């Protein structure tokens, strides 16, 4: 489990840094608007879980994916979804339960999904997405074999496509430190290992499981050690260092694409907000969150790097302003959107025996 080392600032990739920052600002701004919608406007009725402080992981991992790749998320999934390419309008509409929402207002924050960009769903059950994600990777592998058996032998694959590796579809699965204590962690990682599946597991370790310090409920050294014991290629990264996440994820994503085998990324981070937007998080030691906000905000850290690398503050500020404008717009759009058709509650249950045919 190598940890990330200091990059010399001389050959710093400014374009990538800016792109990471832009995405992180968008995620932050989206969630700030979502929180306003909830707290100020009382327009978000269900619970929402903010990833404020954790944006570097979503941005740093997702920049290596394309929309054909799949991603599965948790209850804390806004950042992942946005970084995967979903539009803020359809996301905010979903959070407000409105028409136009990516799930038609039926899912809300905890079930946000956008299959058009490969986002196969947040999940309200901690850890449940891990085995589903392994299965999505299983599906990719099976379909590849099925195509190959139709198109010819295995070797054709190596000849036919020039950029073979980039074409290899993969899955990324996010989950929290708390999820590593549920059965699906073991079963899902084992599944991916046994069947050699193209999936990158990303543990976002923000140290808390709701109001519980996860370390108090976790035996042994933790998720990364467990992943290694299941034979997965594993790395640990400072999840609040966007460049470190991007570098490590680049390596692991490429490895998963090339080998078709699973890998595991443990990213240490901190959630600056409460577990839900209405959680005052008073269970934290005094000053812990303030200290983290002051010293370990991934956005501040990346801004500092960029300034050190020669970027103008104004240019960076502009990214924040743009993001805020975009997300204020998304909230305005969502607020102005109609409720879903009443009848849609009977649609998409099932084809056969659907309540559209007979309500009971």
């Amino acid at each position: 489990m190598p940890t990330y080392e200091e990059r010399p600032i001389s050959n710093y990739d400014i374009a990538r840094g800016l792109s990471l920052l832009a995405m992180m600002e968008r995620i932050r701004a989206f969630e700030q608007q979502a929180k306003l919608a909830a707290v100020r406007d009382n327009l978000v009725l269900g619970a929402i879980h903010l990833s404020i402080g954790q944006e570097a992981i979503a941005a740093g991992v997702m920049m290596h994916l394309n929309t054909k790749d799949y991603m599965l998320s948790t209850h804390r999934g806004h950042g992942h979804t946005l970084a995967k390419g979903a539009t803020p309008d359809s996301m905010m509409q979903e959070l407000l339960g409105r028409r136009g929402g990516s799930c038609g207002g039926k899912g809300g924050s905890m079930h946000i999904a956008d299959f058009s960009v490969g986002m196969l769903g947040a999940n309200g059950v901690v850890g449940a997405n891990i085995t589903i994600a392994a299965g999505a990777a299983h599906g990719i592998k099976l379909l590849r074999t099925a195509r190959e058996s139709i198109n010819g032998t295995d070797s054709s694959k190596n000849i036919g496509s020039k950029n073979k590796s980039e074409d290899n579809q993969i899955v990324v699965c996010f989950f929290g430190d708390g999820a590593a204590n549920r059965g699906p962690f073991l079963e899902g990682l084992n599944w991916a290992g046994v069947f050699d599946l193209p999936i990158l597991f990303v543990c976002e370790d923000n140290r808390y499981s709701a109001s519980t310090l996860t370390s108090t409920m976790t035996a042994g050294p933790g998720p990364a050690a467990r992943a290694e014991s299941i034979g997965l290629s594993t790395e640990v990264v400072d999840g609040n260092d966007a460049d470190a996440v991007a570098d490590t994820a680049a390596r692991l994503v490429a490895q998963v694409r090339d080998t078709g085998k699973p890998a595991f990324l443990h990213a240490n981070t901190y959630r600056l907000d409460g577990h839900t937007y209405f959680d005052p998080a008073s269970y934290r030691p005094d000053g812990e969150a303030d200290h983290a906000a002051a010293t370990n905000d991934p956005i501040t850290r990346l801004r500092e790097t960029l300034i050190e690398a020669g970027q103008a503050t104004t240019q960076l500020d502009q990214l924040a302003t743009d993001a805020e404008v975009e997300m204020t717009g998304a909230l305005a759009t969502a607020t102005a959107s109609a409720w879903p058709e009443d009848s849609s509650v009977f649609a998409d249950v099932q084809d056969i025996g659907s309540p559209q045919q007979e309500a009971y």
Partner: protein
Amino acid sequence: MTPSSMSVTTTMTYAEAAKNAVAEVMRSDSTVWCVGEDLGRGGVFQQYKGLVEEFGPQRISDAPISEAAIMSAAFGAAMAGTRPIVEMRFADFALCATDELVNQIAKARFMFGGQSRAPMVIRKPMGMWRSSAAQHSQSLESWYTHIPGLVVVCPATPQDNYSMMKAAIRCDDPVVYLEHKDIWAHEGEVDPQLEYEFGRAQRRCNGDDITIVSWSHTANLAVEAATRLASNNVSAEVIDLCSLWPWDKKTVIDSVRKTGRLLVAHESVQVGGFGAEIAATVAEHALQELKAPIKRLGAPRSLIAYAPNLENQLRVTTEMIADKAMKLCQ
């Protein structure tokens, strides 16, 4: 409920009622303990608030996010001689521990020929609450009635949540204890001396024209519906089953014999819901006395949606109960 001679009642919420019952029993029985996620901070609905301060973190125990282990470890500890109260947080998450509850806990006593007991209270907050969508809103009480070995209870009021919790902790069998999430803050008078006996329904309104059978929060709606019906000169008898297994067949059948009409109302999906069991039982035992078809009112067989207008399509409301009862009496 057996009324007591010298009752001193106190006002408390549904959540506090259960908490007070738990605390009282824990004071006198050192083998009782609670286990679940975040209990040390009072639990997700604050239904354990202050208990860790009194009883310490061993008896008000946090747990990893491991519903299967929470359920199953509590079971092991029950076989070893303790009396665990298991917190599942949301009834939906209890599905992560189904093998543990159904294949292990419910069956152990029988399978081992009576050698073991599993005195456990398994708390599963159920029902619709705050636009929580499909994975945080389910009411699956009928499932548990179908599993031999389990007692199934659904308190609807603070008094019931107090008295039934005490009865559940005292019980030597595993009790699936389904509190409704939407009424944690409901206040009511609680007489600590009232004792509850499983299998006893409560006649919450007396009436002659129709019997409305319900449980959990829907029973409260049925009481409201009875008031509306009264103003339309329909006299409805409302029976709150309180416990679904065992359930009080006699009270229900006697009532139907008297009124000649039966409406069963519940929040859960109608198809395969426990309302069917009641309807079927009455259709077997009191068919001749029926003046009208037996009606059920449950959720359509769809999933619980997030948007409030969609969620509302799935609710059984006071109005719907009153309307359906009205029609049945015409």
